[in-house]
């Protein structure tokens, strides 16, 4: 009885240590996460990577490096001017889209039919994930009920040859049986 009580106390202390450890970890993570640096000049680079150069080189505006490319130079100047005048990101992207056409945006916008571009991959992933989980659960349910039925009938363990075969299969397909 006393031994059992000691074990329970020891177990509770162990649990407390784990909780304290987890709290310290969470605190460390929170502190580190809050140490973000501020860098407003990154906006030009960020927007430059959300727009395309319109010269036909198929490169992002921020990465177009063609010598004498008239388009990228002008676009960059326009972008810098809009940022300097305090325009918001969405306003700048809309202005570029209105002036150069929708293809100047490096990715589909979140409006109109473009939304489909963003939704479809997520929808397919979620549907495939749920489908796979349901399928595996159904399969495992079928296997389990088949095993239970076999146990109930006594057919599962009645045949020693079967047992050794099952053991052989387990061994060959077990953790050391191949990749």
């Amino acid at each position, binding site marked *: 009885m006393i031994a059992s009580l000691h074990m329970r106390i020891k177990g509770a202390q162990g649990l407390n240590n784990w909780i304290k450890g987890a709290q310290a*970890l969470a605190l*460390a*993570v929170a502190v*580190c*996460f*809050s*140490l*973000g*640096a*501020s*860098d*407003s000049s*990154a906006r030009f680079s960020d927007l430059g*990577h*959300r727009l*395309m150069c319109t010269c036909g*080189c*198929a*490169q*992002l505006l921020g*990465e*177009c*490096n063609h*010598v*004498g490319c008239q388009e990228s130079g002008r676009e960059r100047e326009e972008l810098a001017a809009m940022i300097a005048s305090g325009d918001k990101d969405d306003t700048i992207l809309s202005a570029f889209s209105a002036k150069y*056409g*929708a*293809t*100047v*945006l*490096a*990715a*589909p*916008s979140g409006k*109109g*039919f*473009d939304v489909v*571009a*963003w939704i479809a*991959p*997520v929808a*397919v*992933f979620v549907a*495939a994930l749920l489908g*796979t*989980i349901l*399928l*595996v*659960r159904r*399969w*495992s349910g079928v*296997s*389990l009920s088949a095993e239970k039925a076999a146990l109930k009938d006594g057919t599962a363990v009645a045949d020693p040859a079967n047992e050794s075969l099952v053991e052989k299969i387990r061994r060959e*397909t*077990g*953790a*050391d*049986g*191949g*990749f």
Partner: protein
Amino acid sequence: MAAFGSLALLIALALAAYNLLAGALALRWIATGQPTPISPERLADTARRAGIAGFAAVTCAAFALVWSVFTNDFSIAYIAEHSNRALPGPYKFAALWSGQEGSLLLWAWLLAAYGFVLRLTHKRDVKLYAYAGVILSAVQVFFLAVINFAAPPFSLLKGVLPDDGNGLNPLLQYPEMVIHPPLLYLGYVGFTVPFCFALGALMMRYPGEKWIKITRVWTLVTWLFLTCGIFLGMHWAYAVLGWGGYWGWDPVENASLMPWLTGTAFLHSVMMQEKKGMMKSWNVWLIFSTFLLSILGTLLTRAGLVSSVHAFAQSSIGTWFTVFLFFVLAVCIFVYILQRSHLKADNQVESLVSRESSFLFNNLVLLVACFIVLWGTLFPILSEYVVGSKVTVGAPFYNRVAIPIGLFLLLLTGVGPLLPWRSTSMRSIRRNFIAPTIALWVTVIACLVAGVRPWKDGAVDQGNLYALVAFALSAGVLTAILSEYGRGARVIAKQTGKNIFAAMYLLIRRNTRRYGGYFIHIGVVIVVVGLAGAAFNQSNEKELALHDTMTIGGYTLECVGFDQASNDNYTSDFALLDVSKGGVKQFQMTPEKRVYLSTGQPQTMVAIHSVPGWDLYVVFEGKNPDTNQPIIKAILNPLVSWIWAGVLLIALGTLVALFPSQKPAAQKGGQ
């Protein structure tokens, strides 16, 4: 030579057609068992020999084209368009695949070469090889028909012959371009072979899983070629295009990635079929899809369906490929419906937490990734069709959608091999996953302390967030793989009394497939770490007069001269930059800008100084027309060399997996 080449191609087409018709007839006679005027086995053998002779014919045609390039035979339109007298020898070889017609000839030649090997090794399983050979000949008939009638490489120029050709595209005049396209094509074309075996095995209701074992080597080799081809392409883009990156999500890059993703899924899921007799239909469709995606990729590249910097000139062959694509799809569906009862699974997945279900999820993620790439590639066409205006689907889209999927896949890379087949217990999970979980969280904290913070100005910094997750998962996966390997080695060391290193070697020799796979996974982890480094790129651009300096990272670049040079092929402007660190000169870099004389096209030659931690990447962007001084762009790319190192490990792992495993002494003695 043009007449010889054209004749060789016509003969090759006739031989492939004979192989198809005679082979199909012989197989039909064998299947029905009806009395026949000649022995069906002998007829099938003549078909096989026609296939072997076909390889000789296509080789003659390829030789004729290469000979014409080297002898500057500008009476052939293709040679005049893609070569010139001053072109260096190795690039004359590259001219073979630099244009539409030549690259299709290369495709046909590689297909014939694969067919040659397949037909020579037919004794392994005569009937299955006969089926596969006939299906392969059908694919050959298509490609040979295209290069005979739609895109002939030996067309002659009309009128006055030019003294010199237009020369090779400057972008292709780089050493890797002599290797990258053939490797990529070896991968693309190679998937035809497992496709033929899968379709053949389904048609003949092949008993057992032997066809999977036969195709395993073909698939692995093909996958290795495609992997190396893709990464060489990345390295070429990095070293030649001069924008500092290596993957631009261009439709042609995407076209190579899609069959790679489905091929990778196939390599994983065939293990389920081999071990447990599961996923038979799935595997058949995976390899069908891989082949169809190879054809789709070719269609995208060559038909001008999507705009790409890589695309070949638009031509009528798009129609040929579209018809072929739908024909193959129809055949696959028809045969599958007819024979699907043959593909009934022997077993089912028993638990959500098991090796089997990890394979399922791995396949799921790879296929979703493939869907995302396909969707992003085709969405501009869909948008134009639906709303009448094209949109761009570029890097920001893929970064947001594909990277999380890739990270999930990385997680499965570590989790999958730790789970046993059938089902697992909590004890086993705890034992296997405690060390990787600790490694993961230690890495998170270390990264946060080192300044990799996923927040900036109160908002999520996507690049840093992905990098942090990638580093943490990589540490977890690496620990998982190494601890599993170490556990196995310790058991072997205990059993055999060998030291730990000898035990590690023995472990690999005893199960090359498993530990080759582990090497590949470690290679993937290293590649991911390299890719995550892109989140910390720095760049600086400056016009440099003599003795002007610019800084990037800890480096100071001083312009100590700029000069010009020329040869028969190009003229070049280059800058001489002394690079110092902490006031001490370390090395000199010479970024260059070439202008090719035959085409007048400019070409960047990037100067790269690579160390394990980062690449210093310097581009000569040209001269300011007002001041005539060079404009230099310097980029510090962290961890890029890890990508190339990871690929080497992936290649090594694949080679290890191809080696047959050593049987334990007891088993040897028993045989």
